[in-house]
């Protein structure tokens, strides 16, 4: 099987099939990352399309890292720009939430009979932005902690710490499921 990087360079040389394969590989994971990160369908749609448009119109192949980190970085930067323009604060729990993130307390959801999967997604949605971002990048892109640290231009320990806090909150919320 051809690597992402080979497919991308083949696409730049004029092979549309290479692009279709590459698109299929990242279609779900990238969109899921954007939707669960932004928690807004319209915003996720716009940023997803814009991110692929940047990839398509790239003049030269990326020189460092992998295609995976390349496209996720594009998507993340676009999302930050969008939030900056819309004056949405992503640093804490005071984010604007949509239907995806149910802000109901964990106990209430347990009483409603939600399964563990749905409860996990709901808990992820209410995580602070940095923790949620680190968790989603790790789960959706499959990047290692070092790769995520490089991509976000922060130290490996910072990412490790964010992930530790995120997992602690999730463990506490899903105690009865695990």
């Amino acid at each position, binding site marked *: 099987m051809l690597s992402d990087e080979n497919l991308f360079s083949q696409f730049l040389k004029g092979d549309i099939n290479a692009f279709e394969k590459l698109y299929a590989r990242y279609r779900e994971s990238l969109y899921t990352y954007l939707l669960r990160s932004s928690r807004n369908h319209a915003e996720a*749609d716009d940023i997803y399309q814009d991110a*692929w448009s940047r990839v398509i119109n790239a003049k030269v192949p990326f020189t460092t890292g992998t295609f995976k980190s390349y496209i996720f970085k594009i998507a993340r930067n676009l999302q930050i720009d969008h939030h900056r323009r819309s004056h949405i604060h992503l640093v804490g729990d005071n984010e604007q939430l949509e239907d995806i993130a149910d802000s109901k307390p964990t106990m209430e959801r347990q009483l409603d009979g939600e399964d563990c999967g749905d409860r996990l997604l709901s808990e*992820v949605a209410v995580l602070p932005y940095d923790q949620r971002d680190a968790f989603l990048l790790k789960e959706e892109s499959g990047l290692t902690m070092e790769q995520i640290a490089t991509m976000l231009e922060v130290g490996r320990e910072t990412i490790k710490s964010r992930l530790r806090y995120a997992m602690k909150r999730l463990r506490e919320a899903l105690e009865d499921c695990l």
Partner: protein
Amino acid sequence: MSNEEHIDQAISKLYQSSKKAEPSTEIDAAILVQARERLNKNKSKQAKPSVNKWQRWVVPLSTAALVVMGVSITLKIMNQPQTSYQLEMPVTETGFIEKKALKDEAAVPAEQPAATMMLEAESDAMMQEIQEEQPARALQSIAPKAKARASTIEKAQKSEHKKSLQRSAPMAPEAMGIRPNSEVLNAPLKESVSSEIEWSDPEAWIARINQLLDNAQKGKAIGELERFVIAYPEYPLPLELNKLLNDE
């Protein structure tokens, strides 16, 4: 592996098992169309012949080179000292005679074709007669005509010889030991001669000079004689006229 790590793995497994979100088919189609358009654009760009830097500068450089060359040549020509190649006409006392001779020479070709054409027309008429009549009879009838024609040709040859004598460059009067007075030289040639026939016929001119002498018009006769000598320097003068000229 600690208990926390086990739980983290379980959370990760639970997350991966959850249903993934998918973009709409419209978004998928839009992205794939965009990718195809980009590739088509690239192909059309490649199809265009690329113009390298040299080709782009060929026309302006050639134009500049031409302008520089033109200006330098013009400046060089302007800075060169001017040389006059015009030959000056010799100023001699016999200049007017030379001019007249040149004029006559230029006029001759116009006269000659007329005479030649007349002769040609005559010979054509004779040839037609020969063709129309019997050869024997034709010879008899043509004989007198041929005689007349021979005399005509002889006359034409004589007149041409005279004309050629007139056209030959006259010697300077000084070279012959003659000092013509300025009045004679400055007077227009044609006015001094009584008629065009005398001018063209030296014998008639001599006769005219003799006639002036007989009529006791010695001054006029000497003037005419001087002009005659200038016009026909090689013509042998009668003894009495020669003597008259030397006395003067």
